[in-house]
């Protein structure tokens, strides 16, 4: 049941990426192009996702507290902002702006063997591997 749910969760996520337009690099770059021909529509992707997640998260936390102890929700409390994480996020943002791919959409585009994704994803995994070698695994 747990495995099935996780697969379905991935299925919904993948469909959401395509329907929202996040899998189109030109569109993502257009969203980040504030000074040019700005296309603000993709702001609604994060808006919709955060709204739904926040509502569900709030309900799950309440359920865990009042009814089902030990639901096993992860610790999402904020850590102190660290220099390492800020610099890492900036590097991530530069890569995102260059290719218009973040990890989810790049992996989603593997489904139809898009050339850019076939190049991007192995390089991304290499970058992840290197970062884990340097900084270690985190939570």
């Amino acid at each position, binding site marked *: 049941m747990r495995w099935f749910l996780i*697969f*379905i969760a991935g299925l919904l996520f993948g469909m959401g990426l*395509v329907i929202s337009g996040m899998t189109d690099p030109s569109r993502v770059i257009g969203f980040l192009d*504030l000074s040019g021909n700005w296309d603000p*529509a*993709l702001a609604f992707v994060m808006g919709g996702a955060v709204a739904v997640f926040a509502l569900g998260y709030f309900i799950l936390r309440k359920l865990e507290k009042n009814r089902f102890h030990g639901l096993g929700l992860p610790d999402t409390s904020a850590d102190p902002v660290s220099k390492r994480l800020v610099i890492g996020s900036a590097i*991530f943002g530069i890569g995102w702006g260059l290719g218009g791919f973040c990890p989810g959409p*790049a992996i989603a585009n593997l489904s139809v063997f898009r050339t850019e994704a076939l190049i991007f994803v192995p390089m991304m995994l*290499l970058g992840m591997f290197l970062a884990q070698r340097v900084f270690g695994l985190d939570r």
Partner: protein
Amino acid sequence: MEFLEPLFGGALIGIGSLIAMAASGKIPGISGVASKILKWHRGDTLWRILYLAGLVVGAGLAISFSMGWAKYSVPADKGLAVFAVAGLLVGFGSRMGGGCTSGHGVCGIGAGAKDAIIYTLVFMAAGILTVFVWNQLMVGGALQ
């Protein structure tokens, strides 16, 4: 402005993330999910593979059944070398930065974590600046 598809797609992303979090007990940001497959941990790898497999199948279904509605295009000045460099930066930065668009941007902010808001603002700003610099200096033209 077409905002209904982004909003609906975003809601699906939120639901998927929520189910994955409840079923795995982890924060299911895609960069974290993908990177930790690289190192096998008993009991902590299968769900990651299933989640990404679902993502690929879901995207493939949506693209196949969209009958050309799901657009895909790459700016003319972005060659494959750009995608190689971008992939490396995205992979390295996501793990150095502790998350990506889904981990920080959706799950972190959705769970009300203040640090996630800061990291999201940082990578959005870096992305905007990168597109600005690329276009202003016409880096793409210079590379060709």
